[in-house]
């Protein structure tokens, strides 16, 4: 690289033998966004877009015969250079390079070390400038020492307006650049494809469900919310998102050297009238500003209510073991933007409202609110039967014709035929109390028997279904109960109906040997 210190070597010249060619800007771009691999459910966080994207750009290149360094400008800032693939060059690629050294004041200084520069001094009174030939001796430690014919001085320690004027040369670019060393037998113009993985993207599905007045059915709509936190935008791109967890190995992105600012640090500049510094107040101001900006950034994309009927929806297809959703028409994925495209709209999905509580065998509780949830099955009979990618869900209910928010929760990836449960939060109208009625011990095997009473009260004007899941000691068994014992996912469960504005009671007896672990 010509910018390095290469006094007295031939290398500076030899590096320049390869012609420096910039590929044309992309004529076609495709962006496939993947979710943050660690997030199982929930929506995206615009401050931490931990997903990534596969970007494929079609570009035109004009190569001369022989060796050239083909530069790609305008790639995403979060590019993982080691994932770059270049296809379409007939003679292949000799090597791919990513240079993180970018043009900065510090890089200019470092490159000018021991080389001739001009020192420019401006007279504050007259505006006249004086240019003096100079050599930079050091840029170490944030200070600059230079030599002129007068002797050795330090930059901006005199209180005079002074700066350097550098000679042009060097090929540092504004952003980290991706380039390929290619060799071509003949001059050619070729369409090539550059694809790479880039960080700073994410997406999730944002569902909104609206319950019918009788709470027996709901309408479900969803948006694909995708976001790009890169500074680079992708105009008129073929856009896809992929659902399903893909493996990512934890890899550090290559360093990106912005260069330190030229501080022009000087010798100690204390004076006889030193007063306490005023930086503190400034620092506090900037801190509160940055906090404000953070809260602004955290505002999640609003869950838009669905009003339009004819929406452009994404098209689903199978990609290996993943689901790929294609945005039907080209769209611009701009830098630092979040974007929503319709995922699905389904109406009249039958749902059942269930109340649920865990009754643990080791605790007595006076009274606690049961959880309320909506349950349905992801199949055609329930007007669903399509893969539901993970994300967030907001459940609305109608009140005077207006949909009002009931509860917000999250959804994990749900395949076809899976049971779907949507939480509606705690219901204070349905209270559960647990009492140990009797504990007995039989020796010598230390067999314990315990009688439990569970009281459920319902303040709602309708009958409710409640599921009481029993958390048992390891090895414990329910041996007697006054309601039929069922089970769900291996856990004993009672299902009771509680009359409107009434209550119900359950008594059961369990038996276990003296073990203390709870499963």
């Amino acid at each position, binding site marked *: 690289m010509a910018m390095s210190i290469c006094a007295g070597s*031939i290398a500076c010249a030899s590096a320049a033998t390869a012609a420096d060619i910039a590929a044309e800007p992309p004529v076609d771009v495709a962006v496939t966004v993947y979710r943050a691999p660690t997030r199982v459910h929930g929506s995206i966080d615009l401050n931490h877009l931990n997903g990534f994207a596969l970007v494929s750009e079609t570009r035109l290149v004009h190569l001369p015969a022989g060796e050239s360094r083909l530069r790609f400008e305008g790639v995403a800032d979060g590019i993982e250079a*080691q994932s770059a693939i270049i296809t379409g060059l007939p003679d292949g690629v000799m090597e791919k390079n990513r240079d993180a050294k970018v043009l900065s004041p510090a890089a200019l200084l470092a490159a000018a070390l*021991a080389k001739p520069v001009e020192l420019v001094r401006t007279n504050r009174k007259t505006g006249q400038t004086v240019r003096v030939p100079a050599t930079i001796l050091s840029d170490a430690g944030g*200070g600059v020492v230079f030599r002129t014919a007068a002797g050795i001085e330090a930059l901006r320690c005199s209180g005079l307006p002074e700066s350097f004027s550098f000679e042009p040369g060097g090929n540092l670019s504004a952003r980290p650049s991706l380039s390929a060393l290619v060799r071509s037998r003949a001059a050619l113009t070729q369409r090539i494809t550059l694809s790479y993985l880039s960080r700073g993207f994410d997406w999730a599905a944002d569902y909104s469900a609206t319950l019918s007045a009788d709470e027996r059915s709901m309408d479900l709509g969803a948006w694909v919310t995708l976001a790009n936190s890169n500074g680079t935008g992708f105009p008129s791109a073929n856009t896809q998102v992929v659902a399903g967890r893909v493996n990512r190995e934890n890899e550090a992105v290559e360093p990106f050297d912005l260069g330190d600012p030229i501080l022009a640090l000087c010798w100690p500049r204390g004076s006889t009238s030193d007063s306490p510094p005023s930086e503190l107040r400034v620092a506090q101001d900037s801190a509160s500003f940055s906090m404000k900006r953070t809260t602004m950034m955290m505002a999640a994309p609003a869950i838009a209510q669905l009003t339009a009927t004819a929406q452009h929806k994404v098209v689903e297809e199978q990609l*290996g073991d*993943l689901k790929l959703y294609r945005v039907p028409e080209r769209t611009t994925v701009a830098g630092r933007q979040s974007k929503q495209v319709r995922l699905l709209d389904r109406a009249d999905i039958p749902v059942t409202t269930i109340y649920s509580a865990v009754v643990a065998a080791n605790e007595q509780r006076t009274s606690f609110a049961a959880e309320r949830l909506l349950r349905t099955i992801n199949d055609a009979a329930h007007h669903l039967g399509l893969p539901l990618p993970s994300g967030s869900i907001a459940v609305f209910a109608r009140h005077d014709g207006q949909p009002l928010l009931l509860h917000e929760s999250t959804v994990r990836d749900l395949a076809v035929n899976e049971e779907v449960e949507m939480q509606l939060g705690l219901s204070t109208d349905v209270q559960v109390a647990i009492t140990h009625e009797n504990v007995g011990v039989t020796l010598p095997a230390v067999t314990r028997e315990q009688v439990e009473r569970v009281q459920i009260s319902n303040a709602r004007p309708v009958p409710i279904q409640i599921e009481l899941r029993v958390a048992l000691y390891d090895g414990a068994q329910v041996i007697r109960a006054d309601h039929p014992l069922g089970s769900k996912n291996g856990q004993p469960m009672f299902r009771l109906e509680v009359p409107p504005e009434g209550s119900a009671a359950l008594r059961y007896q369990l038996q276990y040997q003296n073990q203390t672990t709870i499963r």
Partner: protein
Amino acid sequence: MRAAVFCAGCSLWFLASAAATAERTLAVTIYNGDLALVQDRRDIDVKDGRQRLEFPDVSAQIRPETVTLTATDIAIVEQNFDFDLLTPAKLMEKAVGQEVTIVRVNPATGVESREQAQVLATNGGVVLKIGQRIEVLRDDGLPVRVIFDKVPDNLRARPTLSVTVVGTHSGVRHATLSYLTPGLSWKADYVALFDEGSGKIDVQGWVTLSNSSGSSYENAQTLLVAGSPDEAGSDAGPGNYRPVRPRPTLQSPGTESGNRERLGDYYLYPLAERTTIANLQTKQVSFLDVHGVPAEHGYEFQNRWLATSDSALSVRSVYSFSSGAHAGLGDQLPAGILRFYMRDKRGDPQFIGESRIDHTPMGSTLSLATGDAFDVKVKPIVAKRKHISTFDWQTDVRYELSNALPRDVVVKVLQSGLWGDTRITAESQESGRRSADTAEWAVKVPANGTASLTASFESRY
């Protein structure tokens, strides 16, 4: 050579570096664990007698204790690595007791007036003695230039390696400077395109070397060594931390030799041409390109002992292939990351996940998990735990498998944690034992259907 001409009046160290003549060849050998051996062959001009040779253009992260300079007809007296850096503050500090020139600039007229001053102290502020008076430099905030006569001997812009030698006669001679430096490392990156129809993969391998050593290596002959001889430092470096590997990728280690160059038990990957490794550069060079290697796609689910779940969990999507000469990649695979791609319905390759591999001998069978299957899930349920005698427990586990794909799949269900003499007393289909503590069942799940596997374990506690 313009720099040398311009610097005709500079201090010794510029002269010394310029004195090294143009002939210079670099050889860089890079190991996996953030370590490189640099061999810098150049012609140096040595005078008769004792002298100091400076090498300003070595790695900024050089390990000075590893430096060796070899040349004919010289004797080495000592090697020094100076890292006292030239800053304005140091310059002033070293001028204490000495004379400097100060130039006062009249802010109204711009008229300059020169005076000689002696620096008395630099503690907090600069105290000067001008004639018979004492002043604090720029106490009034008015512009004052301070001009020094020379740069103190030991101050430099960059840490500098110097070797003091005694030459037996003067003249230009070949010399080799070799040293170890961190900041250079390499790994492999693989691109695998899986074709679902034919069950074959195309694999390209790239070596990725990165340079954060602070220096550039011009036109260097580059050799990559698959191995890390730096035992002490290799695992401690940032970025090398690897948590416990969740599943092994190497199914059976290979026993084929191949024809790669070796160094001891390390494999060598020389780059075909000289290349420039710039500072803060990541460079990739191809070393492997094979097409149509048979690969198998399968599903795997691993359950911990007594793990039970309320929701169905996605199984792992696993690809396996051979690195052998026959129906395989036919090469040793240096450690790195293998990225899998697959074509979508439009024919565009899409990323489907990646997996890290270790140094892999030729002829090995690799099994790499790329991610989770959206449509194939397992819900493990501990259906029953029963105390059958004082120390014996019976545990019934039910694995509910579901498949929303339009084709039959086979899922390998692994139950781990079968410590001690845990026995399977009943099972709905026959199991194999991957190891003493892991049972394995291959369960067929029909298209758009479900399957159930049950097993009853007897364990002691």
